[in-house]
């Protein structure tokens, strides 16, 4: 599996400078508030994964890998490992920036940064699962479009959740007190996203097993 990872790295080498600049810019922007720009880096990870699939498709490497000693399960596993590597790389800059920043502004920033990094890691992994599953099922071209639909669906679900909660709060507490929105009101949509992601994780292996070339 390490050779497959190495192969993906070799293909992406030309993008390293571009990534470095993105990370420097986003890290600089998040110097005062590490959580702020972390999401940009999380999304970057999905772009890289899409590129990895596009490169494989371009030269039919997925087909070739399937006729070697590499099992289809291992191929998918390598892509998850790649996704994890990107996530870790994406999550590290805010943490490092926060550590440096905390030397001057107090240690509470590290806790904020740790939470932000953990969030980036989770969000990046969720997006990674969707990218991998969609690319295996539909290819990188169509997968890209379906990923955008997934983003739109997530935004829609979150908005609906917020509107529903706010409406209920308004009905219950209208005129009596100020409506305060709590983060745990988002539990239903977070649950829906996590459940669908777990389903996608399982489907990615099934789709790869059934894939015909």
């Amino acid at each position, binding site marked *: 599996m390490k050779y497959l990872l190495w*192969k993906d790295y070799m293909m992406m080498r030309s993008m390293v400078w571009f990534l470095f600049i993105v990370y420097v810019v986003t890290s600089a922007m998040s110097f005062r508030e590490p959580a702020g720009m972390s999401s940009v880096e999380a999304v970057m990870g999905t772009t890289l994964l899409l590129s990895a699939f596009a490169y494989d498709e371009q*030269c*039919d490497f997925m087909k*070739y890998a399937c006729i070697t000693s590499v099992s289809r399960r291992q191929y998918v596993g390598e892509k998850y490992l790649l996704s994890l590597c990107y996530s870790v790389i994406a999550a590290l800059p805010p943490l490092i920036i926060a550590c440096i920043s905390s030397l001057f502004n107090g240690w509470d920033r590290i806790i904020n940064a740790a939470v932000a990094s953990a969030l980036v890691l989770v969000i990046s992994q969720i997006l990674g699962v969707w990218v991998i599953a969609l690319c295996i099922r539909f290819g990188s071209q169509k997968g890209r479009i379906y990923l955008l639909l997934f983003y739109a669906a997530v935004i829609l679900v979150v908005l609906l959740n917020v509107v529903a909660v706010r409406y209920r709060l308004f009905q219950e507490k209208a005129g009596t007190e100020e409506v305060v929105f709590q983060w745990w009101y988002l539990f239903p949509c977070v649950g829906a996203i996590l459940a669908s992601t777990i389903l996608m994780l399982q489907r990615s292996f099934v789709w790869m097993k059934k894939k015909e070339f």
Partner: protein
Amino acid sequence: MNILEVSHVEKHYKRFQLRDVDMAMPQGCIMGLIGENGAGKSTLLKCILGLVRRDGGNITFRGEELNADTAQMEEIGVVFDTLPFHGQLTPAQVGKLHKGLYKNWDNARYLQNIKRFGLPEKEKIKGFSKGMLMKLGIAAALSHNARLLLLDEPTAGLDPIARDDLMDIFLEFVQDETHGILLSTHITADLERVADYVTFLHEGRVLFTRPKDDLRDEFRLVHCGEADFRKLREETGAIWRKQDTQYEVLLPDGAAAARRYPGCQFDRPTIDEIMLMYVKGGTNS
């Protein structure tokens, strides 16, 4: 012993079906898989490699059921018509990648093959010609102790010199009697030179699978006028085609027919001519 046996393999798509494909390939031989575009050659190779699920039939490799998820794949080298590696890699890096793809990968042999084929080890493959890419693919396929080579159009787009080089490599590979090559190609001239067996696929069916020498010895092509044509068309298995004012008749048992019709000129057909007659010719049935 047969290195590869395909029995009653079926694959159904909406617009195309591979039906009841049977063939057996003995060890130490090169089998040519011929047929027009869309005849099912690539689909058959994909069935053998487990790249598509077959809807019926069996495939055995050296007497054992072929399973794409097992170590058997170590013993099968594959070369597709396009190289499955990104242009940014160099041949040396392709070798390094293969260490992870095959447990039996022999990098020393690979580097030796690269050198033998005259490929630059450290240049990016995006600058390689089609012939160099094919040689790289074959160098990789020959470097993991494969016994069977499956080649899908390996000589397409190559100049005669490069094709000749590849044919030499193939002939050398089958010097070992436990090896074999299944070669799917449109360029039948290559098969005339190296193939021991020829399997002809047409519209998803095997029309024949026979030793190449049998084709040469038994098939005869007759160019004749109307009067001879009327007699020759009654021969068993005769296939004919009208060419301007003349007729071309292909006779599967031509050697015997030649004795019966001493007045006609019987020629040995090329594989191309046999293929053309089967696809475009008319028959009694």
